[in-house]
C-alpha cells in the first residue's frame, strides 16, 4: 500500500508538464538578473580602467621586449633539431570571467606537448597563473615543473618576472630549448595566442652566427642569457595582462547586454502574466456573482 501511494504521488509529475510561472517566480528572477547586470557593468568599468593602465605601460614594455629578442632574430639563432629537453612557459592569470584567455593558452600548450611527445622529446611546463594549473594538472600533471599563483591581481613588474626566472633556473631542469606561450595584444577587441622561442646557453654559444660577436666569454654569455630570459618572461606577462583586461571588458560588456535583453523579455512576460492573473480573478468574480 505504501508503494502504491508512492507511485501514485509520482505519476503527475513525470512527463512534459510545465507549470506556468507565477508572478512571484518572475519577480524573483527579474530582481536577481538586475543585480547581476549591475555587477557585470561595474566589472566592465573596473576592467576598462585596468586595461587603459595596462596598455599605457605596454608601450615601453614592447620596445623593451623587441629589443631583448633582437639578438636572437638578427643572429638567426635556431635550435638544433635533435635536442631532447623542452620547456614550455604558459602565461595567463588567476582570475576568470575573461572569455577564452586561459583556454586558448592551455589549448596551445596541449598541442605543443602532444607534438613534442609524439616526436619523442621530454617536456616540462611552467604555469604562470592558477587557471592554467586547473586546466592542465589533470591531463598533464606529471609535466608540470612550476606553478605561479597571485598573478593578475596587480600589474606585473620586472621583479615578478625575475622571481619566475630565478625559480626556473634554480629548479635544475636543464632545458635545451623552449618557448613561451602568451596572448599577444592586438587591439581592444582582439588578441592572438603567440609563441616566442627561448634558447639555452649551449644553443646560443654553439650557434654559427655567434662567431661574429666579439669578446664574449662564458660568464658574460650566461649572465646575458639569464637577463634575456627575464626580459622575455616580462614581455609575455605584460602582453598577457593587457589582453586579459581587454577580454574581460568585452566579456562583461556582452554579459551586461545579455542581461538587459533578458530583463526586457522577462518584463514583458511579467506584464502579460499580471494581466492574465487579473483577468482570471475578474472572470472568477463575475462567474461567481452570476452563480449567486
Amino acid at each position, binding site marked *: 500500500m505504501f508503494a502504491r501511494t508512492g507511485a501514485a504521488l509520482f505519476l503527475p509529475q513525470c512527463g512534459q508538464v510545465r507549470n506556468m510561472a507565477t508572478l512571484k517566480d518572475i519577480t524573483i528572477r527579474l530582481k536577481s538578473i538586475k543585480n547581476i547586470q549591475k555587477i557585470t557593468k561595474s566589472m566592465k568599468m573596473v576592467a576598462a580602467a585596468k586595461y587603459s593602465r595596462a596598455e599605457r605601460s605596454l608601450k615601453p614594455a614592447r620596445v623593451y621586449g623587441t629589443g631583448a629578442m633582437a639578438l636572437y632574430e638578427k643572429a638567426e639563432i635556431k635550435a638544433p633539431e635533435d635536442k631532447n629537453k623542452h620547456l614550455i612557459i604558459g602565461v595567463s592569470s588567476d582570475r576568470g570571467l575573461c572569455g577564452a584567455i586561459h583556454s586558448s593558452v592551455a589549448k596551445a600548450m596541449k598541442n605543443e606537448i602532444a607534438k613534442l611527445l609524439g616526436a619523442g622529446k621530454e617536456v616540462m611546463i611552467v604555469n604562470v597563473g592558477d587557471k592554467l594549473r586547473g586546466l592542465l594538472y589533470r591531463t598533464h600533471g606529471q609535466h608540470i615543473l612550476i606553478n605561479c599563483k597571485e598573478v593578475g591581481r596587480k600589474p606585473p613588474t620586472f621583479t615578478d618576472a625575475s622571481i619566475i626566472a630565478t625559480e626556473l633556473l634554480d629548479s635544475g631542469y636543464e632545458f635545451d630549448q623552449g618557448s613561451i606561450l602568451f596572448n599577444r595584444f592586438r587591439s581592444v577587441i582582439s588578441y592572438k595566442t603567440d609563441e616566442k622561442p627561448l634558447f639555452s646557453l649551449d644553443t646560443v654559444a654553439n650557434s654559427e652566427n655567434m662567431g661574429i660577436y666579439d669578446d664574449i666569454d662564458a660568464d658574460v654569455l650566461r649572465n*646575458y642569457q639569464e637577463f634575456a630570459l627575464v626580459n622575455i618572461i616580462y614581455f609575455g606577462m605584460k602582453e598577457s595582462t593587457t589582453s586579459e583586461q581587454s577580454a574581460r571588458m568585452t566579456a562583461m560588456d556582452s554579459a551586461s547586454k545579455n542581461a538587459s535583453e533578458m530583463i526586457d523579455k522577462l518584463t514583458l512576460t511579467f506584464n502579460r502574466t499580471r494581466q492574465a492573473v487579473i483577468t482570471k480573478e475578474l472572470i472568477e468574480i463575475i462567474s461567481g456573482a452570476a452563480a449567486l
Partner: protein
Amino acid sequence: MMAARFLLRRAVPALRHARCYADAPAAQMSFTFASPTQVFFKEANVKQIDVPTLTGAFGILPAHVPTLQVLRPGVVTVFNDDGSSAKYFVSSGSVTVNADSSVQLLAEEAVPLDSLDLAVSPCYAVISTQRIIGKLLQAWLCSPLFTLQYIPDFHNNRTQDCLEYNRGLFNEVKSV
C-alpha cells in the same frame, strides 16, 4: 631568374661581413635604450654611447664590432649628433651590438642623472631619491641572481660591504 635572385641574396651577407680598411664606416646607428617601464631612445641615430660593463667601460660608435656585454652599475653617456650629451645612471642590464650596427641597451633600471639629488648624504641619496641602489640591495638580499653576478665584489654576505660599494659608486656618479 629565381636562381639569380637566390644567388644575389646569398651574396649580400658575405659582402657585409668582409670589411676592408678602406671601407667608410656606416653612418647610421639604430640605438634603442629602454628600461622595463620607460623608453629613452628608440631606433635613434646617435653619435656615440659610453657604457660601463663588467669587463670595463667602452664607447660604441657606428659600425662597432658586434658584441654582447652585461652592464654593471654606472653611468651611460649618450652623445647626440649635435654634440649634446645625456647621462643616465643604470643599475644593471645588457648591451647588444649587432652586425648591422644596431645597438640595444636594455637596463633593468635607468634614471637620467639630473633627476638624482646628490646633495643629500651619500648612501641615502641614491637609496631614497630613486631607490636604485636600494633595489640592488633588496634584490641582492632576496635573490642574488643578478646582483651577485653583476657586482663581483659581493662574495661575502655583508651589508656593510654593500654600503661601502655604494659610497664608492656614489663618488663615481658625483664626479661625472
